[in-house]
């Protein structure tokens, strides 16, 4: 093998490497990175004509049942150790800061209701959300600002991040446990049900009022 051609300069000049080779490339790149990488990130570093998505699919199958697994994190992929081997790893564990109950509940509300405004979080919890709680979750990079809600005051919304998905081993927010059951039970509507608790103004119930 005579060193890889500088393919950037001559796209299409060389045929794409065989799939087995593409799989090796994806394997090497993902192994080298502690952070999840998107298929597009991988493809950008591979020769032209490669199919990173297909290589990822092959690779995921290869690592099924291994001590290390290929997992999807949002739009990205990463190698992670198999959870059943956690007991061997405890020496590597870095103690994460203990989260307050308010922070944990707020996180769950953002994950299950996203995009969600602060007022909606407060309506669900029945108490004000302290600045520190939101800050802590933002600092952990578990939640981030989403789009502003198109209601009067254009309040900011919060959504969970890929890092959240990565931390909790979720391929996407659709994989949140019990999501469908909660939705079917009508428990994922952040609007305050009916006229209960008239003391706090309905956070996003207003949406409907202002849409045609």
């Amino acid at each position, binding site marked *: 093998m005579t060193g890889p051609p500088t393919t950037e300069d001559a796209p299409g000049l060389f045929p794409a490497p065989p799939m087995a080779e593409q799989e090796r490339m994806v394997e090497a790149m993902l192994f080298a990175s502690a*952070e999840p990488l998107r298929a597009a990130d991988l493809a950008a570093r591979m020769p032209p004509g490669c199919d990173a998505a297909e290589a990822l699919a092959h690779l995921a199958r290869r690592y099924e049942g291994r001590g290390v697994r290929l997992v999807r994190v949002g739009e990205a992929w990463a190698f992670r150790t198999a959870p059943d081997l956690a007991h061997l790893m405890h020496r590597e564990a870095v103690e994460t800061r203990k989260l307050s109950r308010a922070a944990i509940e707020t996180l769950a509300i953002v994950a*299950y209701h996203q995009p969600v405004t602060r007022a909606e979080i407060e309506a669900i919890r029945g108490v004000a959300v302290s600045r520190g709680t939101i800050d802590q979750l933002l600092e952990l990079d578990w939640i981030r600002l989403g789009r502003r809600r198109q209601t009067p005051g254009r309040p900011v919304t919060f959504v969970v991040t890929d890092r959240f998905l990565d*931390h909790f081993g979720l391929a996407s927010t659709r994989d949140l*446990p019990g999501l469908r059951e909660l939705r079917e039970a009508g428990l994922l509507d952040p609007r305050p049900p009916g006229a209960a608790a008239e003391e706090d103004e309905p956070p996003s119930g207003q949406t409907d009022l202002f849409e045609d």
Partner: protein
Amino acid sequence: MAEDGPPAAGGDRLLVDIEGFEGPLDLLLTLARSQKVDLRRISVLALAEQYLAFVAEARGLRIELAADYLVMAAWLAYLKSRLLLPPDQAGEAPPAEDMAAALALRLERLQAMRDAAAALMARDRLGRDVFARGAPEEITHAVRIDYTAGLIDLLRAYARIRTRDEFRPWAFDRRDVYTMEEALDRLRGMLGDIADWAPLEVWLPPGWSTPARRRSATAATFAAALELARQGRLAIRQAEPFGPVGLRPKGPG
């Protein structure tokens, strides 16, 4: 996760410990759970009575209750009266049953989020149960530098150069100036070599041929010649106005 909630939920009556609750909704949820039934089938009427009893006891013990607890108490007292009275014929307010159902749903939703939070925290978590590559390999970045400059930078740079010139203390640019001192030195050196009349041009320094330089050299040499003539070491002659100027060394004395 909800273990750090109320200290004693046993029986129908709670010890009054307002500190343990995160607001009236949290208190209501704890009371509702003490009914030991599915949250969907709780008796909101009983719940309202429990809450009002709790608040009454707290006040009996002169515990300062936050305003939101009292607002909730007022609302529940209203709900209770509505639930006990026959339906409002005028139909101005929503039916009491709907209000009760909405409250029950709110409590159920809060409980659902608490359960979800607990389930979330119990998952296999990165850095605790599942691990990333411990020794990630650095991607080396070959940095290609793209230099940028805008027109405004260019103009500023030029302006800066010119401005600096303006600020420079004014000094005659001596590169093209032949000084009288230089001319004197040159003429003195030439006195011994030239014996007879020679036109001024001959006395000029070599290399001062461009118009500006020639002009400067001619002026300096002529001025130097006048000085040497004053000292009696040189004779100057000119046959007519604007005619050629001739110089001749004079012996001392």
